[in-house]
């Protein structure tokens, strides 16, 4: 495979799965905060 093809494959996968990982992490962090707040535990405000 040419370097161009490998780079574009990495960019395509990286951008999309990277975006998925970031969105999911944000979603999970907020979910944990919500659950802690719901249970009356102290919420990490960072």
């Amino acid at each position, binding site marked *: *495979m040419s370097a161009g093809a490998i780079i*574009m494959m990495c960019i395509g996968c990286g951008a999309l799965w990277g975006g998925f990982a970031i*969105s999911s992490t944000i*979603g999970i962090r907020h979910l944990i905060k919500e659950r802690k707040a719901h249970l009356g535990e102290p919420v990490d405000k960072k």
Partner: protein
Amino acid sequence: MRDQWNDKLGFILAAIGSAVGLGNIWRFPYIAAQNGGGSFFVPYLFAIITAGIPILILEYTIGKTYRGGAPAAFARINNRFEWLGWAQVMVAFMITVYYFAIIVWTVSYIGFSFTQAWGKDTTGFFLNKYLHVSASATQLGGIHLNLLIPFLIIWALTALIMYGGINKGIETTCKIALPILMVLTLILVIRGITLPGASKGLEYMFRPHWDQLTKSSVWVAAYGQIFFSLSIAFAIMISYSSYLPKKTDVVNSAFITATANHGFEVFAGIGVFSIIGYMATQQGVPVASVAGQGVGLAFMTFPVAISTLPALNTLFGICFFGALFLAGLTSLVSIIQAVVTGFRDKFSLSQKKAVTIILVPAFILSFLFITGAGLYILDIIDKYINSIGVVSCGLLEVLLIGWFFKPEKLRKEANEFSNFSVGKWWTVCIKFVTIVVLGIMIVLNTKELIQKGYDAYSSTDLMLFGWGSIIIVIVCTVIFTAMKGKEGYNDLSKVAAKEAEQ
């Protein structure tokens, strides 16, 4: 009381399950390869940001805020918009009817994988021995038992899921099916890239041709892929998000759904083109000569590749057709639910009653697609419903919301419970970018279908099944919009008050 997703994960998985369909596996890799290879990712990623995610946020917000399927939600936005919801629902109904047939084929081919029953002439096997295709779309040619049995099984399975409702039916199905789909795809990719010649296929798919970026057709293809892949503009996402609790974050949900869907199709594309590269190497021909898409790729080209594998042919066949089956099933239930929700909300029906009302006519009509003419009819309706029906619905949706409603109001609604806010770029995308792109698409598609027709089909076939299906959508839209619904179904304040009481 209106159903609700058990948790946000259930909704996300159902939305991803809807978006990840057959096109992700058999359409995307070929579209990418044909439109610049690796350089296709530039317009593709641009289209995700400027059209895919903005329209997804729009539909999630409409569904969640206006608490209804497309007809009720649009009626609650403005009473004069209800017809658009019914147009989307009718497009979804048309797709429901023929989508069954493809899932039936995937189930049969899972069975055929055990013995590679397709033999050496995979095209002849598929068209003549399996489908018993007739001479034209108007010569039905009867129904054969080999198709009827899996057809009835799939119908029973679908009815079971749909009667289960949002939680026990769709959510549970997606929570089981999606992880399995990912595992099957992972097996396909790992097996694919370890085959001799895989790099040839990947080179064909990912090698950038930068000069292609100056072609408008490449950009239109990118927007088209994003648009068709995300299940937008035919009532699905509005319907699914109407079952969300009020405090759900829709912006991040849209980002998760879009990135997962498109990430999956790129990943699946690696598997598909590895196999195609292997097959081209085995046959000593260029990759371009075996690369294809759609039904031809899945049921004629891939069986050849499966038969020529050095080992584990059966396992590979089960993985490939199993992935198609699961991707198709999770999309099918979402399309049916879009129709069901439309009827439930306007006529105040229970899930079971609405499912029965939808599935009975769909069941009867879908028999057309297991006749000898089924493949032709499916091909024609699919082309016209997608090129004209879905694109028109998408264009009208952004036009009505962008210019005859207050998109800023929806943006505030979207941001109200979001983990991160969506900026004014969203309004620009809805009011300008998506309208221009969808406008170009509908003009080009209509012009092509009127001037050139489609494939080698006769004008009678195209008029009867192609334009005929569009006319059916329009007529049914008028009828269902005119029908009297339950008192107050179009009044959001009454609906909200009723929900608060419950």
